[in-house]
């Protein structure tokens, strides 16, 4: 009995380890960074991502100064609030919200939409990589 359960435990931990390993290999942020590098970006830096995050751009139509924290708040580990509708936005930091940065299509969709709203243009591959590193570290 004892031996079987021990073997069972070994098998289970092996299974878990391989699952973790395959997850790590398929990390969507790593995948994206590779793609951004293939587009000429490189030396991604969380510090640069932080600067872009705090950078304010005046929206020509509304005249309001837009920055990422307007919706996501100053602390990524806490909930934000949509600047227009007031709807709660779940924390962006993967350390408290593991769903974040877990789906490549979602990451790409939000980077596209939110760069356009905040900066009035799409982000460059370099900027996207920098910001993703910054968010991942939270």
């Amino acid at each position, binding site marked *: 009995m004892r031996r079987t359960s021990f073997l069972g435990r070994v098998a289970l931990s092996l299974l878990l380890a391989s699952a973790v390993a395959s997850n790590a290999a398929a990390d969507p942020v790593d995948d994206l960074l590779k793609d951004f590098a293939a587009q000429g970006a490189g030396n991604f830096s969380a510090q640069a991502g932080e600067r872009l995050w705090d950078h304010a751009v005046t929206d020509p139509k509304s005249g309001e100064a837009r920055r990422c924290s307007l919706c996501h708040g100053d602390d990524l580990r806490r909930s934000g609030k949509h600047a*227009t509708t007031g*709807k709660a936005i779940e924390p962006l930091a993967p350390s408290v919200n593991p769903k974040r940065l877990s789906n490549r299509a979602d990451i790409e969709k939000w980077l596209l*939409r939110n760069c356009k709203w905040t900066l009035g243009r799409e982000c460059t591959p370099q900027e996207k990589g920098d910001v993703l590193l910054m968010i991942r570290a939270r």
Partner: protein
Amino acid sequence: MNRKTRLVAILLALSAVSQTTWVTQSLAATKIFPPIANAGYQKECGSCHMAYPPEFLPARSWNRVLGSLQDHFGDSAQLDAATQQRIHDYLVANAADKAQNEHSFAIMHSLNASEAPLRVTATPYIAGLHAAVLDPAWRPNPRPKTLAECSVCHLRAQLGDYSMRKFTVTDEAFRGHGEL
């Protein structure tokens, strides 16, 4: 078929008809919206604002909304083509012009056939009901920046129930609180 059985058959047929009518009427009488039955709609649209019941706008409005996601009230709400089509089909299939819901009837009744508003709150019926909410003169509380988040005042909006509301204005004549 003798006279007696013919009579029974007619009575049975009549009762079947009246039963059908009764069922239709009881469905039509509802003011509650069914839960959102499309995961894509809930996810893609419900991240930034409440995923409004499709029964709030006619199909012609949803066509316009889904056709202008690049500039969705000043925001980009771009979707991939397949997702957009699925959400479009769900919204149009359940739109106000097809829904058996009292609010939908009132919304449709308040619109001209040529009108296709982009906002739920731009339909005359809904706009009229909310005229005081954004008027600073009434010092409304809570005071939402826009009317986009129904659940700020309609505490059971997520359940499709808009009958309960919590909203106050300071003018005595307009003061209301809780369930009316």
